């Protein structure tokens, strides 16, 4: 489905074939008592409100509720439920926290949503080895709270308080990736239940060596598979030491070019910067209003440095030298934890700040990523395109990774605006692809970017992806309609 159809379908109804629905409804009815005998009476819900809650995420994609929601309590229950679904040809949709941004949990063919939130144990923490294993109900904030007395943390921070297994499934990233990497670099092992109920451990049961050369890299096959290959029921994560000191700063520039050039130079200078976020003047204006701040309304960099006191001094001096040579303002500092939290909350609230600028409108975030050297060009061209297309777009992004988001706010009843957003988004994705980049840096493919994925990896690679999918899930029960067309 093209991006346009995906956007359009969120605002009007697309009917599924009635015969398919009634066949499936009958199948679902038949298995309900079997489901209940596995996860208990209150582990199975047909309630409309519960199904709707499990049919949507934080994207604009309309709600596509499953036929039933089940709440397994352990991997054995997940496996038994999956076996039943497999026997009765029922789609299986894994659900963590519903904080995705690409419509990944929509049950486009109905089926059974596996809400994994009751599996919420933190298992096997090994502080000396810097690893921990968690179940899908554990969110990143819950894990970091659990770890608070150990001196360790899990730094991948996508903003939302997402399920860690969900983050593995979508190959999540965040503001810290420039220093600590994304989920791809930080997932060491996965326990996965396949569509037929078999349970596998991608790196072997309980294994957690820091590196391995053993066999196909199954762990990273499932990372980013968005529930289309299996249900992730455990993930073993790489932990890091909590930074000794942290300091954040805000620096304003007179032009986008100057801000982005600074970013590239900071990284080329080898500064191990922890966060480097770009906000254009439209975004800063929205954040000022929403979070009651008063930053200058111009292209801005939010920076964060981690390290020992001496290391921080060195990092900051080098960075200041670079920003000043690009005409950047004096740094506005945030040293204590309360001020730093407020600063980053304002950044994470960008999504809501953007929507608050046009109440009643829907928001959509683009998510492209290009090699660093192409960043200045793509942001400048994108901003020009926004103006020419008469669209409301705020640019915010993890420029340290070459990844930025254009938060579009649009009136769902304005067909012309929707059309312009569609064309703009496709142009942006293709602009990124033309610059050797990707159509999705961190949000995933989900429903809306399947055709762009084809353009990005090419038909031969898509064929390999399809073959893998056919081999692992021949009945196409695992989250149908996502990633692959």
């Amino acid at each position: 489905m093209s991006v346009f159809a995906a956007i359009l379908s969120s605002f009007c109804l697309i009917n599924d074939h009635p015969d398919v629905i009634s066949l499936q409804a009958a199948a679902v009815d038949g298995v309900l008592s079997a489901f209940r005998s596995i996860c208990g009476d209150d582990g199975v819900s047909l309630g409309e409100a519960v199904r709707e809650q499990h049919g949507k995420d934080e994207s604009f994609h309309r709600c596509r509720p499953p036929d039933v929601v089940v709440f397994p309590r352990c991997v054995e229950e997940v496996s038994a439920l999956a076996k039943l679904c497999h026997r009765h040809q029922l789609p299986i949709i894994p659900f963590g926290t519903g904080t995705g941004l690409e419509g990944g949990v929509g049950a486009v063919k109905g089926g059974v949503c596996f809400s994994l939130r009751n599996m919420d144990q933190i298992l096997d923490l090994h502080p000396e080895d810097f690893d921990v294993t968690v179940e899908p109900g554990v969110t990143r904030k819950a894990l970091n709270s659990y770890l608070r007395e150990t001196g360790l943390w899990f730094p991948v921070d996508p903003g939302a308080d997402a399920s860690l297994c969900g983050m593995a499934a979508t190959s999540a990233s965040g503001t810290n990736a420039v220093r600590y990497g994304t989920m791809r670099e930080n997932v060491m092992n996965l326990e996965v239940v396949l569509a037929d109920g078999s349970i596998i451990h991608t790196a072997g049961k309980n294994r957690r060596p820091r590196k391995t050369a053993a066999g196909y890299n199954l762990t990273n096959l499932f990372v980013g598979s968005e529930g289309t290959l299996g249900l992730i029921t455990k993930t073993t994560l790489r932990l890091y030491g909590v930074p000794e000191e942290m300091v954040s700063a805000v620096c304003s520039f007179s032009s986008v070019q100057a801000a982005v050039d600074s970013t590239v130079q900071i990284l080329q200078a080898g500064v191990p910067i922890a966060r480097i976020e770009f906000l254009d003047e439209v975004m800063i204006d929205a954040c000022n209003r929403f979070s009651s701040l008063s930053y200058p309304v111009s292209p801005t960099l939010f920076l964060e440095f981690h390290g020992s006191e001496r290391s921080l001094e060195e990092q900051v001096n080098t960075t200041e030298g670079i920003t000043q040579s690009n005409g950047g303002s004096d740094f506005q500092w945030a040293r204590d934890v309360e001020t730093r939290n407020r600063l980053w909350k304002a950044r994470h609230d960008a999504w809501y700040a953007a929507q608050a600028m046009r109440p009643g409108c829907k928001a959509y975030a683009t998510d492209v990523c290009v090699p660093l050297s192409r960043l200045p060009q793509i942001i400048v061209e994108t901003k020009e395109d926004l103006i020419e297309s008469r669209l409301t777009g705020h640019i915010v992004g993890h420029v340290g990774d070459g990844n930025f988001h254009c938060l579009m706010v649009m009136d769902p009843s304005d067909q012309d605006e929707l059309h312009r957003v569609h064309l703009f988004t496709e142009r942006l994705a293709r602009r990124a692809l033309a610059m050797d980049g990707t159509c999705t840096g961190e949000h995933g493919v989900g429903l809306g970017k399947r055709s762009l994925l084809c353009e990005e990896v090419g038909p031969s690679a898509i064929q390999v992806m399809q073959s893998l999918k056919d081999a692992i899930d021949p009945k196409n029960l695992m989250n149908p309609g996502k990633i692959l067309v």
Partner: protein
Amino acid sequence: MSGRVLVGVKRVIDYAVKIRVKPDNSGVVTDGVKHSMNPFCEIAVEEAVKLKEKKLIKEVVAVSCGPQQSQETIRTALAMGADRGIHVEVAGKDYETLGPLQVSKIMAALAKKEDAQLLILGKQAIDDDCNQTGQMTAALLDWPQGTFASEVSLDGDKVKVVREIDGGLETIKISTPAVLTADLRLNTPRYATLPNIMKAKKKKIANVKPADLGVDLTSRLEVLKVEEPPQREAGVKVETVEDLVGKLKETGRI
């Protein structure tokens, strides 16, 4: 002024754990359950360490009363910046019946022994929610108290405390030595970092017995029964507004 601050830290069941009542209703399940420093005690430690960083006081001493495992809680305080610890050994039946009265007698004895300028405690523990230890200790010592503190500032031999009260905020000025209890908004506690945890291993923790302080641990309270709160009942759907009003009247709600 000695420049010494005593901070009481209590080892409690971690706030994120789902509490379960023992089948015999004698208490809650603690075996194999994650424990950590009481959140309000974390805030107390943070405040003391901040005072030392501002060079307003000279030494932070972390105190905990309990079994062997209480030493872990003291180590966390040391990793946050406390200079040394005192572990008051209380185990077995004595630990099960340990409450604010006995702890405040211990704290009072230690405050005198250590010539403390300030004693900072969390306002309450999240397991018993007593909110008594700080107040009792101040009474035993006949020291002023600044409880529910959301802001603390030292000024010579006086302390200005902004207190969170029902009507808003109350500002008082008290002389030292004094007892302060920390409320939620006093500060945001720092995370222990690995280097600091390593350094903390070398800091000293002294072992003390309550008898050495002349404290009698006999409890004057006996727990009769511990029960879970009643299960939430399912709601009732009604068809009309009249039905709704009728039901509300029936159950005495209006």
